């Protein structure tokens, strides 16, 4: 949505205030300017000329959004709140430019796949200088204050990215279906074991997997920060890589990547000659890992797992993609496993990608509710469909001393099949 198109959307907000009851940021900050109704009215104020978009106050308030879409789901008028915030961020990026670090990563790094890959591969060699192993082998903690909170548990960049561990094609005898796997950055560089679990589970269930080597970042981090030109470039690259493949479906195993391929590309590429139809075709073909498997049905027998598990709904998987039922069905189907629902499974965990870098304290406070909910559930395993949520929930559980493991749905299933992670 362009800035000039915003007014019509903005005045559709009848200021009823329903967003107050669901916004995680408002819950913590309490000021009217931090809830969707307030942000929409600030955008309206910019259009009217009452508020200066160049001011730090406006930019900061536009940054206070997790893109969790809870307000949108709850908005009786159907105001496209996320599109409004994105349009504002886009304008800010265009008018004021991106901060240098974001510009370097987005424009120089992400636009060049080989350079990005080289940088990420170099990561493991140097991260030991910056990160130290956390006690108990749970992850890494910063050695120096370098933009990361000193208590923040992060997962290191793996020495061997997922895509260099697996062949470009994993075949099975008499495949039921063939899928192409869009791995995304977190799985490729930080959690290759999720990628391995995805491939393993698919393989055992008679699904052949193509893993195109030329794939790149989906663009979500760039898009949500308002850098639309880079996001368009990344969207085109993904569409080009996946459009022509002989596959029955394109599989994602990250809520945000899936949301990008299925929802955001259509908007990003609407005005790109030749790309609109290809983006629509890719969107129609893309399915989340759990969604695809639940539809196809598991054919291979499981050993089972004796444990209690719960499930966290990633915002981009549950709200953007509407995938809620399928992961639960898969988890419930694991022999020996007890499933306990969280009190508020779809409440945002507070990670929201770069939001947790920019507003770490706030993202922790939001996460505390999630961790409390997990602790109250008594589950030993927390299952989710988004690697970013996994990292943030692990960090929260570690800081609050809550025991339990955080797993991707694919990892849980791989374990149930007896595959060591």
């Amino acid at each position, binding site marked *: 949505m362009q800035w000039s198109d915003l007014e019509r959307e903005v005045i559709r907000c009848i200021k*009823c205030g329903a967003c107050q*009851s669901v916004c995680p940021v408002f819950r913590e900050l309490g000021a009217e300017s931090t809830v969707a109704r307030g942000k929409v009215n600030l955008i309206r104020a910019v259009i*009217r000329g009452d508020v200066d978009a160049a001011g730090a106050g406006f930019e900061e308030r536009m940054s206070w959004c997790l893109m969790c879409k809870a307000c949108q789901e709850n908005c009786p008028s159907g105001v496209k709140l996320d599109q409004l915030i994105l349009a504002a961020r886009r304008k800010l990026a265009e008018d004021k430019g991106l901060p240098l670090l974001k510009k370097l990563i987005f424009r120089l790094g992400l636009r060049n796949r080989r350079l990005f890959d080289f940088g990420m591969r170099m990561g493991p060699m140097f991260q030991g200088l910056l990160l130290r192993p956390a006690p108990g082998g749970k992850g890494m903690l910063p050695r120096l204050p370098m933009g990361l909170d000193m208590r923040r548990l992060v997962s290191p960049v793996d020495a061997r990215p997922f895509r260099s561990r697996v062949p470009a094609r994993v075949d099975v005898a008499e495949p039921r279906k063939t899928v192409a796997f869009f791995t995304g950055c977190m799985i490729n560089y930080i959690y290759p074991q999720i990628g391995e679990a995805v491939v393993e589970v698919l393989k055992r269930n008679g699904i052949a997997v193509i893993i195109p080597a030329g794939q790149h970042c989906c663009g979500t981090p760039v898009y949500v920060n308002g850098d639309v030109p880079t996001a368009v470039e990344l969207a085109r690259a993904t569409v080009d890589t996946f459009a022509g493949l002989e596959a029955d479906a394109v599989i994602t195993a990250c809520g945000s990547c899936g949301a990008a391929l299925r929802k955001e590309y259509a908007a990003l590429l609407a005005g790109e000659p030749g790309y609109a139809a290809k983006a629509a075709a890719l969107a129609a073909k893309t399915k989340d890992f759990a969604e695809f498997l639940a539809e196809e049905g598991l054919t291979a027998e499981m050993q089972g797992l004796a444990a209690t598990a719960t499930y966290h709904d990633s915002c981009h998987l549950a709200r953007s993609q509407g995938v809620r039922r399928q992961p639960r069905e898969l988890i419930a189907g694991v022999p020996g496993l007890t499933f306990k629902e969280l009190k508020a499974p779809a409440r945002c965990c507070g990670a929201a990608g770069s939001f947790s870098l920019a507003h770490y304290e706030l993202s922790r406070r939001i996460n505390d509710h999630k961790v409390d909910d997990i602790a109250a559930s008594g589950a030993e395993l927390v299952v989710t469909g988004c690697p970013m949520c996994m990292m943030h929930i692990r960090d929260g559980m570690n800081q609050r001393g809550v025991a339990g493991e955080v797993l991707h749905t694919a990892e849980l299933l791989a374990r149930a099949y007896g595959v060591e992670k």
Partner: protein
Amino acid sequence: MEQTVVAAVKGIVGAEHVFDRFEDRYCYTYDASAVTAGKEGMPALVAYPGSAAEVSALLKLANEYKFPVIPRGAGSNVSGGSIPCAGALVMVLTRLNKIVGIDRKNMVAEVEAGVITAEFQTEVEKLGLFYPPDPASKAFSTMGGNVAECAGGPRGAKYGVTRDYVLGLEVVLPTGEIIKTGARTMKCVAGYDLTRLMTGSEGTLGVVTKVIVKLLPLPEAKKTMLAIFDDMEKAAETVARVFMAGVIPTTLELLDNIYIRNIEAAVNVGLPVEAEAVLLIEVDGDKEVLDKQVGIIEGICREQGATVKVARDAKEADELWVARRAAFAAVSRVRPTIIGEDCTVPRDKIPEMVRIIRAIADKFDIIIAVLGHAGDGNLHATILTDERDRDEMARVEKAAEEIFRATLAMDGTLTGEHGIGLVKKKYLPLEVGEGGMMAMRAIKRALDPNNILNPELV
């Protein structure tokens, strides 16, 4: 506002509970009504007090330095009752959010003003008790705000409005005194009924900080049904007939075709999009009597030519309620600006009122959708328009005035549950007359000699 005053406010409530940045203050220039103070009416400061003592200190400061104070809960009122004026202090009461106690034996509860209504209801229902007032905004509106506006809701047909449950209040007067009104008892005739005076006073006579409410036993069961009409008149007539048959439904909601179509587009629960009107009817009480009541109502509806669907289970009933609650905002799909009028007429005048509303819509060439808590005569004529269209807005203004005059001519009232606010301020003399205005102004002057509290409303 002078720096010394700003510092004093920060001293009273703590600097972290005060907002003075432009962008933050701007977000208190509106509420859920169609009016806004705009840049010209910017509040000078926004403060979130944490106790009645802090509210009192702020009001004393306001009297000393003569600045206006606008109390506010969640800002969900639709009458413009919490719109500030330039230089005002907006006082948000959402930090007062404790349920002080629920007394099961005496069936009363005490809550702070900032408690969210639906959260309070959930807590009392866990104990088998019932707090009936249910404004459409209950998921985010506050108890204090409900008292200040005397909020109603769909259950009003049987259970009345907020006023009917308030036994007593803790109120900070405009001059800073903290007083208690009413009692924790069911009966109380000690002195003037200040509880009723404060309830519905729209933040002009005092700041409600605590509320004592009476509770009822939670009804054992309820049944929900939808009566579908292809004739609006017949639907409207059915309302009075149901009551005349001796049945008092909890809820009797009338929705016209514009509402039906747009709610269905918004929430997709299978409403009959071709119907001229529907009545959403709910009865509650002992299980044994519900079937009998449903039978009587069903019979009347069928006589009036309706087809009736009774919800089979809680899920189906819930879907109907999700639909009803989405109504007011769902029609914003038609035109971006919606103005919800709140006229209330005697129940038997509903068919006539609906006819008049439709005629006025035609006369001024605007869209008016009709929804109503028809069981208590409370009709929400909803004007669907576009605030950017000046010509149309002028016609809207004229149409609204005709609706108000027609309502009063039928022995009705300008507002059943939203309050007068800024939105209907100029029409109030039509209803209460010059004598009524004089009495109200005298009360305001007596309690608020410096005209501190929400001065623009009076």
